[in-house]
Structure formats: C-alpha cells, structure tokens
C-alpha cells in the first residue's frame, strides 16, 4: 500500500525504530560500562534519557527546516556539494563501522558463551542474509521488525526478578559516592548505549506525522531508558562493586542466576534471543549507510546494500588484534557522540546562511 509513498512511518514505527536502534549489544555490558560510579550508577540511565532528550531538540529543529530531506541532503545543502559529500562519506563509513562493531561484538559473545567449538563465519553468513533480507524491505519493513523484536525480547525482563530477590536493596545508598572524574568516565563510556536515536536524521523524511516526531522519538528514548534503569537497578542490587567493575557482560550473569525446574541455562537462551535486538539495531544503521551510498552515487540501487553486506562480512571476518578492536570500538563511539552533536553545527551554518539571504533581500 505504501510502496510508492514516501511518507511511510507512523508514530508506532518511529517509537520502536528509536527504541530498537538504542538497545543493542550495549545493554549487555551497561552496568560494567558505567561501573566507575560504583553502586551510585543506578540512576545514571535516567540522566542519559534527559541528555538524549536535550540533544534531540536541535536535531528535530533542523529537520523541521528541511522537511523532505535527510542529513545527507542537508549536509550537501549547507556545506556545499564537495564538503557535504565528504561528510556524507564519513557518515556512511560510520554507519557501516558501527554495524560491523555491533555484529562482531555479538558474534564473539555467542562464540564464547554458546558455541565455543564453532567459528563465527557460519553465524555471520546467516546473520548477514537475514540482515540484507530485512533491509531489502525498506525502512517500514525494518520498523515492523523492530516492533516484533520489542515484543519478543521484552519478556526477558521477567528474568530480572531472580536478581532482585537475591540482591540487596541497601546498595542504592549512599546516593552519591563518586568523584567528578568517575562521573565523566562513566558518562563517556556508558552513553554509547544511547547512540541510535540520531538516525532520525536519516529516516525523518519518511515520517508521516513529522510535527509529532519529537514526541515519538522521546517515547522511544524513554522506553529504552526505563529498560536500562531497571536492568542497572537490579545489577546494582545483585553484584558487588568489584563484580560491576570486572564482569564484562553482567546481564549474562544475571540470566545465569535464573533457576527454573524445566530449563537450566537461561543465559544461553537469552544470548540467542538477543540476536533480534542486534539485528534490529544493525539493520537501521546499515539502512542508513545504504541511504548515504545512494546519496553519494545519486541513485537508489539495491546492490548498494549488497556492497555494504560484503564490506560487513570482510570487516567482521578479518581477525583483528584485540588492541585494534578495542581502539576501533571506542573510537566509533566517539564518532557517534560527534554525530549526535553535528546538527548544532549545521544549525549555526543554517542560521548564518538564512541571515545572509535575508540581508541580500
């Protein structure tokens, strides 16, 4: 019905696109990432939500000035053709590298915890086939997949009750036991779990109710933040400060604490189910990368998607050294923070250009 229609995404689609592009591999290690704050970390996800909401304001303001354009065309309009295209190339590289980083981290974890005897190549091929299939259907197909992912994976929250029952509520106090350096470190490392909502810059032209986009994106952000808050709250109850600072994937340990008569290793089930979350997050990124490639080559070709899938395969399959991977994963996060702040620069350029035009008139 919406095949030839540009505006395809209703409010629900936007909410779950945002929500799913936030919750990826980051949640698995969130309590570890924000562990410099010790037990006081439990309220940090709420601060993340507020910051995300604040940084969303310039994004939506800019998009409202260019209602039928995405970040790629806005870049070209405001920065000029060549500089704009150069920035767009960087954005495509970022989207692909971020997607590759997500897939690599997830598949490494699957290999270590669920399939220790296998290499990641087989899982990677299946993953990329599925990913290509989802993206092939366009942004609406991705949004529907995100909705399905949300309802399929939400029941996992039920498993938090074991951690809650075994944990200590007294860990919530004292409220404030960290230095400003520790807070900055936790914020800097942990805000990566919020990266994803900036992709509204790419799919905004497809949104039907653009005037309500801020509200819908905010709902998506806050659904994720509440999930993050609950997970962090239970993790703080369940672990000691040493465990928070040393366990790379605390959520897996939380799932290991689940005791049911008919199932023994809930963590293996959980990590397998997590593939939906990684697929939905990655698909939004790679779709955004494909749109960037379309804009760079000034045409809309399906094989752009295949090119990105092949690049993903090569990047993930190459066994980089551990130190290189660490640098790659952390620098990609900083680029993500840069993209979140990028609209502020564009707004300044827009205002300068707008004033110049006004004065010429």
């Amino acid at each position, binding site marked *: 019905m919406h095949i030839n229609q540009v505006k395809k995404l209703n409010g629900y689609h936007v909410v779950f696109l945002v929500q799913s592009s936030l919750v990826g591999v980051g949640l698995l290690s969130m309590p570890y990432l924000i562990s410099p704050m010790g037990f006081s970390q439990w309220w940090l996800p709420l601060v993340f939500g507020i910051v995300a909401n604040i940084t969303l304001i310039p994004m939506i303001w800019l998009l409202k000035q260019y209602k039928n354009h995405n970040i790629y065309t806005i870049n070209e309009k405001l920065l000029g053709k060549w500089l704009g295209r150069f920035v767009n190339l960087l954005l495509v590289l970022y989207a692909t590298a971020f997607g590759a980083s997500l897939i690599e981290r997830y598949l490494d974890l699957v290999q*270590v915890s669920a399939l220790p005897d296998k290499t990641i190549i087989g899982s990677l091929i299946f993953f990329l086939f599925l990913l290509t299939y989802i993206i092939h259907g366009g942004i609406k197909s991705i949004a529907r997949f995100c909705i399905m992912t949300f309802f399929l994976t939400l029941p996992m929250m039920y498993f938090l009750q074991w951690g809650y029952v075994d944990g200590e509520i007294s860990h919530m*106090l*004292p409220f404030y036991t960290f230095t400003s350096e520790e807070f900055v470190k936790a914020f800097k490392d942990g805000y990566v779990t919020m990266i994803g909502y900036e992709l509204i810059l790419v799919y905004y032209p497809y949104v039907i109710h653009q005037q309500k986009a801020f509200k819908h994106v905010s709902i998506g952000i806050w659904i994720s933040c509440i999930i993050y808050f609950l997970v962090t709250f239970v993790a703080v109850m369940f672990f*000691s400060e040493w465990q928070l600072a040393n366990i790379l994937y605390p959520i897996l*340990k939380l799932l*290991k*604490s*689940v005791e049911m008569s008919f199932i*023994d290793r809930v963590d293996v089930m959980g990590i397998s189910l997590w593939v939906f979350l990684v697929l939905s997050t990655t698909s939004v990124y790679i779709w955004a990368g494909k749109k960037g490639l379309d804009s760079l080559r000034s045409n809309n070709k399906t094989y752009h998607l295949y090119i990105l899938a092949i690049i993903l395969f090569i990047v993930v*399959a190459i066994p980089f050294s551990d130190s290189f991977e660490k640098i790659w994963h952390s620098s990609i996060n900083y680029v993500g923070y840069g993209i979140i702040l990028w609209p502020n620069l564009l707004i300044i350029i827009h205002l300068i250009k707008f004033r110049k035009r006004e004065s010429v008139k």
Partner: protein
Amino acid sequence: MNRSFLLTLSFSVLMITGCAGETRDTSVEHVALVSVMGIDYIDEKNMKLTVAIPVPTGESTAENTKDTQIFSTETKLMQEGIIDISSQADKRIKLNGLEVIMFDQKFAESGKMLSVLENLYRDPTVGGHVRIVVVKGSSEKVLTADYTEEPSIISYLITLMRPQINNTYGPFTTIHEFMYAQTNPVLDTLIPYLEKEESLPKVAGMALIDSNSKEMIQKFNLEQGKLIHSLQGTREIPPFSFNLSENSSEEERVVIDLITSKSKIKGNKNINDPHLTVELKFNGALTEYLGDKDLSNGEDFAKLEKQIGEHLENHTIDLLNELSDLRADPVGFSEKFRMYYDGEWTEDLTEQIVSTAQFDVTVEMKILNVGSLK
C-alpha cells in the same frame, strides 16, 4: 544484475568452504560433562584435581557397571588439570554441567579458593548455580569411596546441595554468591561444611571464609549456621532441636518445626561508636517435648515459649561475641553503616564495626501449635 549477483554468490559460497576448520566438531559421544569437582591441597603451588563424570546408561558395559567415572590429576592451574584429565578420559572434558565444587579444609585454609573460583567464574560455559562446599579430609576420598546406600555419589551430592527446607542449615553458596561475598568489603563468606564419617557425607556445619585474608578461619555448628541464616533474613529455616536446661542435670528437650523467622537489624550510623539493634522473631510448631511442663496449661506454655526465646537469645549473643572476636561479618551488619558512609568502604572498616559494635539483641519465639493432641 541478477545473474552477476548469483554468480558472485555461488563463487563466494564455493570459496567459503575453505574457511571450514580442519578438525571436526566435538560429537556428544566424545564429550564428558563434569558434574562434581574436588580440589585438594598438596602444597603452596600444587593441588589435586578430581572430577566426577556421570556415565550415560547406554555406555556402561557388562564389565564396567559403574555409573560414575572419577579422574584425578595433580596440577598447578585449573585448566591445565582439565586438559590432563581430558587425555586420561579420552574425551573432551566440559564444565557446562558442573554442579558442585568441593574443596578440602586445608585448601580452604590456604586462602587459594578465590583464585581457583575466579577462573571458573570467568568461564562462560560454567553455570550460575554451581555450589561451593568445604569438606573435612580429602574431597577425592569423598568421591572415590564405595557407597552402598546410594547408587550415585553425583546425584547424592547434587541433591544434598540443593536448598530444601529440611537441609537449609545455612546459605547454599553458589559460585556467584561466593564471588559476591568475597569481593564485597561488608561481607565474609559462609559455605556449607561436609563431613564424611562412616557412610555418606553430611552437612556438619558452615565454614567461614574471611574476605580480607581469603582463608577459612572458623567452622560453625548447624545451630549457629541456622542462626546466621536467620540473621541474614531467610524466612524459612529447618527444625530446631535443643536442650533447654543445659546447665542443670535434668534434661528438658524441645523440637520445633515449620519455623518461619524474621530479622530486623538497625545500626546507629556512627562508625566510631557503632550500636546495633538485632531483633529476631521465630514462629513455629512444637513437634516434640521432653520435660515436666504441662503444655495444656497456659502458664506453663507461656513459660516454655519464654524459655525457648531466652535460649535462642543467649545463643545469638554468644554467636555475635564469637563473630566480634573473629572480626568477621557473614551477616552484613556493616552494610547498615556503609549505606550512610561518605567514601570508599574497606574491609578494615567492616572489621572495626564488628569488633567494636555494641549489640542489643532481642529474640522472640512464638509457638503456633503443639499438634492435634491436647
């Protein structure tokens, strides 16, 4: 476009076969899942690793009807020992099904438990419900002894270590709980202590592992274990049986079952002059009584209730004094001070709290029924 895409895809699929590993995947027949592991002390650097592996029913032959395979090796490192045992067993040893890890008392006293368990905790294949136990004597002997009463020592130990109301003499410490308590400066770790006399091993008490030195410093008896467990906030505890007139020649014994307990601990938030108010409330059914009191008489009944409460109170005070002398805190009293402390909490502060705290203890016992006879 489609043709070139299909050609590229076919070529890629053809080429990808080169990425296949040279070794075949491990099949089920070539895997041995360890259920129980025993670690014994040899010297400062070496340990004896013993593993018990259940034999699938189809694999037992006419000559070998054993349902458990036991392998032992001397090793410096855990994984090194596992590799050595793999070569003995001619199978790949996996820890996915590990349920119980036993340490002999000497190993627990050497303070090396944490480093061994940290390695296992790091291993993602090890489950979260692996129970930790200290045994008197050698854990290898516990695993290799002949038991006529039980068909399999593995299933016996797994059942024994599974928390049930009849055997909850103290916390059943899992690998996560052990790591949690050992790395939490407000807690010392309590784990079940097994003893094997003539026949099957039994829970004989609780071993206390100090978080500071990482060594086993004390063994508590079952009644102390139950009291610590109640203080930790456990709601249901197994039956109590004790002699109320310990100091006199006449015996007055009671057995109380179906006990629910409630604990309330309050601190005065002052680490320099710590005061703790400890309230314990027990409800239970008197299932057996040996003594002179007439239980149908209200006055005698109230007297007995009070007497039981006093008995438990005295034992609780004795226990707290013992903990104070040991400078150990398996209950988490110091958490009541850490919650309001501005700064980093250390084990030394915990020791300071436990050793200097003034305890105000009240224990109340309420007998809800005495059975269906008058």
